[in-house]
């Protein structure tokens, strides 16, 4: 896992050539998504209706948010397996303790953020303060969270508050999907965060921890907060998932675990840390979801969709890392 990153500030250097910046940033995955979407619309004209677009956003939102949180941890050179646990707990909590109306929805969002934040707090303590390996610590917390979810709700059931279910999957002015607005909000917060010293520090500790520490960054605090932030994002993912499925399922988070990593990698974020972005990972998640639909419309035999998905994953990662290295060698 050797990288040629040395000094953190050079990592964040602004490259002169806008084409390279485009290619090494989220540009590539956005381009891929647009091409894929064009293909999808060509195969299935009904995809361009505002209903279908909203449905796609609704379907994408949970994975996109999970990938966003995962990206934060990956950038800081870690792994976070607890995404599955947080989402499951949030989902069953919303289904077992529904709170009605818009006020109830705000309280529910706060509850999800609190659940995710607390798990992130525990993870942050274990990884940043006690120096446990992130993959191991978050594996343990994931298992514990799974258990908590099963204690709250033994088998699928419960009902999420109707207000949340209808409003969060609806469209404003019958055009703009609410879930899209949520995603947009998260992206904006991230773009703002990226410019703060906290945001830069996350990249720095992922690129080269020793140098970061020597240049005055409080590695422990940054890593700790990164986990809390990621946890809150997972909570939000659980909230959006509950809005779409309308019920509680104690294992609802599990499918999103591996997919969150795939989305992050697809978006071009290196798993060795120090580069990449939340926006790119969100688009990576969107690409995975869209890929399902494109493969469906292409008539690929159900048995072999896996082969396509795996190959495309490899191709996309190869392509984006090639471009990234092209940017480096300049």
């Amino acid at each position: 896992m050797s990288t040629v990153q040395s000094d953190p500030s050079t990592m964040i250097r602004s490259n002169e050539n806008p084409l390279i910046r485009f290619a090494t940033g989220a540009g590539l995955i956005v381009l891929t998504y647009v091409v894929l979407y064009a293909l999808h619309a060509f195969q299935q004209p009904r995809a361009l209706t505002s209903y279908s677009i909203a449905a796609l956003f609704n379907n994408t939102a949970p994975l996109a948010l999970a990938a966003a949180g995962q990206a934060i941890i990956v950038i800081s050179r870690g792994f976070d397996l607890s995404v599955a646990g947080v989402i499951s707990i949030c989902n069953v909590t919303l289904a077992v303790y529904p709170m009605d109306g818009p006020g109830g929805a705000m309280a529910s969002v706060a509850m999800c953020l609190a659940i995710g934040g607390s798990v992130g707090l525990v993870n942050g303590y274990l990884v940043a303060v006690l120096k446990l390996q992130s993959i191991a610590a978050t594996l343990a917390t994931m298992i514990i969270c799974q258990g908590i979810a099963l204690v709250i709700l033994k088998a699928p059931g419960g009902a999420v508050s109707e207000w949340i279910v209808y409003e969060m999957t609806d469209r404003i002015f019958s055009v703009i999907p609410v879930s899209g607005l949520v995603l947009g909000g998260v992206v904006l917060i991230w773009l703002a965060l990226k410019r703060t010293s906290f945001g830069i520090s996350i990249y720095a500790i992922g690129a080269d921890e020793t140098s970061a520490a020597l240049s005055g960054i409080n590695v422990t605090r940054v890593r700790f907060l990164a986990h809390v932030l990621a946890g809150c994002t997972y909570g939000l993912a659980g909230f959006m998932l509950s809005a779409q499925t309308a019920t509680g399922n104690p294992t609802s988070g599990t499918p999103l675990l591996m997919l969150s990593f795939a989305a992050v990698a697809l978006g071009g974020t290196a798993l060795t840390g120090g580069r990449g972005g939340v926006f790119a990972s969100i688009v990576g998640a969107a690409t995975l979801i869209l890929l399902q639909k494109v493969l469906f419309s292409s008539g690929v035999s159900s048995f072999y969709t896996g082969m396509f998905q795996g190959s495309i994953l490899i191709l996309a990662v190869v392509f984006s890392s090639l471009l990234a290295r092209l940017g480096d060698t300049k």
Partner: protein
Amino acid sequence: MRKKIIKSTAAVLALSAIAAGIPGLASAQDGKKFKVFLSLSYSGNAWQSEAANIVKALAQTAPYDEMVELREVISGTDPQAQISAYESMIDEGADAIISFPISSTALNRTIKRGCDEGVLFFMYDATVTESCAYNVSYLSSGFGENSAQALVNALEGNGKIFLSRGVPGNSVDQRHTDGALHIFNQYPGIEVVAEYYSYWDDRTTQQETAKALTANPDVDGIWAQAGEYGAIQALLDAGDRLVPMTGENSAGFRLALADPDMQAKGLTGVSAGSPPAQSGYAFKLAMEILTGQRELEPMNIEYPLPWVPADAVKVCEGDVYEDGCNVFPPEMVPSSFVSEVLNTDLLPEVNVESALNGTPVPGATIQPLPAEVTEAANLPGINCGSCEAPENLYELTKVEATVQP
């Protein structure tokens, strides 16, 4: 460097081109054929593939081979993926969707939208609570309580038992176990010494039973959901002794029940459980509605509970269940083959090859289904949304208690 980029670009574009070019059947409409989708979630175990194969075989049997365009879609265990698949199928103009839903509630809104567009939704084995969908399931027929009572009878009301369950957090497992515990709790002499999740898999059952046996080597009986043959293997590994067992209908288990050597070691019991044939029944019902031969409003339809006690097991000689035979020999099927995939009343057009490979029987034609459909009892949260369970929910239908609590 540049070469590599060019190569990769070419590869990506080529892949997209292939994807686009693949039988651009997506929107091709053949005016006459019905578009039927088979939507699976889980895949890769014998039960799921046999159920899918039966539908595929039926769709290729005359006259449906001319009338139906069947497409199988496997979504995996992620409810989001199945929601997305349903949306795509509705957009493609599906006439009917025969499906094994991954969740009893998460898919409801998509199903409702599909119903509004005139799509028929037929769920088999697993159910949904959306009222516009048809559920064809044996779930309400009381597998849990009936098999539990049979075990209690075999143990004469006293003994230590294992509970081998399914997948944690799953409503089918919960319903079965609730029914079984309802019966076991009535008998103070019956003690559940170990309860474990076997994920409806032979191997996991074997491993979990082995673990339970280390702590409780003197078990007297086992109540098992699918994967029961693994429990027999674990018992044999541990001490070459068997106990009364109830389970589902794997070929391995049924053959063991009828095997004199196994019986001599103490095996007896009942083979019941989930029949993959439900998929074929659902498909034929859907087709009869589509072709106008039947009028049926959305409802929950009960598929009868298979019930084969040890003394009723009979090995088949041919490739269908005739003369009362109910299990195929080991030369024909592996031990994990789920036996209740054929049904002489409801599915006379298919044989064991259809179940194994999805091939139609040469020369067969679709036979009409019996006119009567049995309505299933309400199972709140499983096959109906806001409804009440009937008072006689755990009423025994296949056995009677020979021992009083």
